[in-house]
């Protein structure tokens, strides 16, 4: 069936359960008026009366009761009226009202692992799209030189800047620092970071992407699947905190998941052996591995589309379920996860 046509449906209620509200109801017994009562008392916005689960738009009055405190995504006017400043869902923690945005860009924080794309090459630095309000900067001095040579960057390096990264290249990096205006400075001074190859890119909404979905910051942003289905080669998954995802064939001793036990003094040796940091040449990738990479990408897409959390646990669970589903549902095993199959997968993963 080459075409799947879905009947349009009414807007579904947000998938995320208001965990704050449930924990709050037990702890907040004597705490005065409940927000639900408060909001139904409001004149003009019937949709916010439904227990705060509705969507508010910027400028919409959330409450006029002075007992609430304003949190993120809100603004206080007239000392008691709280207005939303972003479009999203109202959430509350005790007396704090905040609005989590439906769509938000990634706000960089020091130490985040991000996947970025070079947008612009300047004299001494690159401009990198990391899904943040501003493009991040990657200075020439913050990258490893091939061979791990440690020295000052010269004019020669500046002239050859496109040998390292040029426009459109994808890279994995870490946020090294933040500028006053919120822009991020990146670095790739580790063999774990650098140019990406042998794989597929996928952009989902990142942290802060509202509705509880998107890539969440977790213990491990990158991991290796050693024995994927179908007997392909090992596959690395890189979940950038900024919502950019990279799935690649694992190359032994290379890339973000490589075991870097090398100290600084052995850095040059290791770098010389893994001299492919700036390579844009792919290795030979067999059919089985390609298929599993596409399947993993499908799993992440489903997680993103249904507003589910994206982290190692969910992706791996989703991947195993997808393999099972494909075996169960299709006569000919099919890796496509659109339409009904995506629904089923999301239902299994969200436990409903």
């Amino acid at each position, binding site marked *: 069936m080459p075409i799947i*046509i879905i009947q349009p449906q009414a807007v579904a209620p947000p998938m995320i359960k208001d965990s704050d509200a449930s924990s709050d109801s037990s702890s907040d017994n004597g705490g005065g008026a409940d927000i639900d009562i408060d909001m139904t008392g409001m004149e003009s916005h019937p949709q916010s009366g439904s227990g705060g689960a509705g969507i508010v738009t910027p400028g919409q009055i959330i409450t006029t009761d002075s007992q609430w405190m304003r949190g993120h995504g809100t603004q206080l006017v007239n000392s008691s009226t709280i207005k939303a400043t972003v479009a999203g869902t109202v959430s509350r923690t005790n007396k704090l009202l905040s609005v989590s945005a439906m769509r938000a860009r990634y706000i960089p924080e020091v130490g985040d692992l991000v996947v970025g*794309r070079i947008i612009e090459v300047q004299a001494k630095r690159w401009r990198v799209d990391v899904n943040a309000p501003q493009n991040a900067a990657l200075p020439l001095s913050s990258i490893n030189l091939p061979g791990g040579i440690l020295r000052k960057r010269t004019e020669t390096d500046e002239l050859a800047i496109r040998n390292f990264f040029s426009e459109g290249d994808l890279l994995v990096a870490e946020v090294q620092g933040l500028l006053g205006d919120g822009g991020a400075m990146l670095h790739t001074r580790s063999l774990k970071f650098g140019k990406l190859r042998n794989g597929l890119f996928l952009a989902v909404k990142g942290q802060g992407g509202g509705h509880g979905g998107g890539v969440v910051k977790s213990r491990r942003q990158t991991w290796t699947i050693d024995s994927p289905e179908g007997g392909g080669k090992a596959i690395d998954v890189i979940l950038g905190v900024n919502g950019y995802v990279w799935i690649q064939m694992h190359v032994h001793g290379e890339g973000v998941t490589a075991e870097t036990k090398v100290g600084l003094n052995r850095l040059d040796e290791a770098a010389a052996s893994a001299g*492919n940091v700036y390579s844009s040449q792919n290795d030979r990738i067999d059919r089985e591995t390609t298929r599993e990479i*596409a399947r993993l990408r499908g799993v992440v897409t489903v997680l993103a589309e249904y507003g589910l959390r994206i982290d190692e646990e969910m992706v791996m669970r989703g991947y195993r379920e997808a393999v099972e589903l494909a075996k169960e549902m299709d006569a000919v095993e099919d890796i*496509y996860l659109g339409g009904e199959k995506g629904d089923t997968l999301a239902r299994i993963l969200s436990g409903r």
Partner: protein
Amino acid sequence: MATNQQQVLISPAELAYLHASLSLSPEPIRPDGRSSTQFRPLVAETDILPGTNGSARICFADGSEAIVGVKVEVEKTKPKAGAMINPEEGKEEKGDTGVEGGGGFDDDKKNYSNDWVELAVDIPGHRDDDPGTAFLGNMILEALLEDGELVKRLRINSRFHWKMYLDVLLISQPLSYPLPLLSLTTHLALLSTRLPCLISEGDEDPMFDDDWAASTNLYPPRGEKSKLSTSRPPITLLVMSVGHSILFDPTYEELAVADAVLAVSVSEEPTKPVPQDTIATPKQAKDRALRLLSIRSIDPPSRITPPGVPNGLNPATNGEVAGLQPKHAEARTAEVPATEGVWKAPRGGVSRSVLSAMVFKALEKGGVADEVLDGLQGVEMASEILE
């Protein structure tokens, strides 16, 4: 040839991966796991705009969304330039109308004018006179006019006709080349178009029934008695080739590695009008003969993608840090031999056999166009049941 020359920001390594994955034989592996003839799942509905004669909305899962509204108004048919000079021909035309009442199918083509249909495409972030936008609109319009069936349906009598305005609006950013999306939405909107019921007869000034419930479908559903033929509006499909793989409904990143991209417009071969006393059986409806209306080649964005640098020519992978000999500096632009795993933008044309395979795959019985027409037919029926 259309230009779709927007700079693609995809790294050479990604392009090389996509190309390798899409040109796998026997069956390519698409990045989203679809099979080569599969469309992205879409959400479709009709009759969404109350102020129009017909409207439809289609959304792809990736977020691209289009709305089409159809508006018609009565317009006086301009006499042909020839008719002004030669009054006999005008008489002849009048004579034709007598025949028209009975058949309406094989009457004189001179009566119809392609000016009766106007189509405007609006794409956010692009000017109306942008060559890309204009080309998109013309491709959709070309199929509609080339089919000939639409204009025939707009005739009221020898002096009046319906003037049709099609407004095609892409709501989202153009994430991939929006031609199939816009064409399918236009198809659905035309299927849902209703015209007021004519109560005047012959060449009188047209009078219409006020009751909207009495209005008639521009394209009557199958099985309904009608003097018009049972054809459907045409659709335009986007087909691309990579190596020997032929893919339908390509995404943005797939287009970035395409060897060739074709827009193939297809319609049904008009069947003879169903006689008033018999009703088309489902079997008859299924026996559809497809007709090729037009083929346009679209310049794929792959031609302007940056080439990859083989490791052997890349100073950054040789460990020669400061080895900035001129020959290395030129290595990026100079001709490099094709190396496995290194992206190189496609050049030149594609072989005739691949082109004919692309068209054949779209047109064959039970092929993509057939299934898509069936699928869209289902949407129209579903919305009628809801009413």
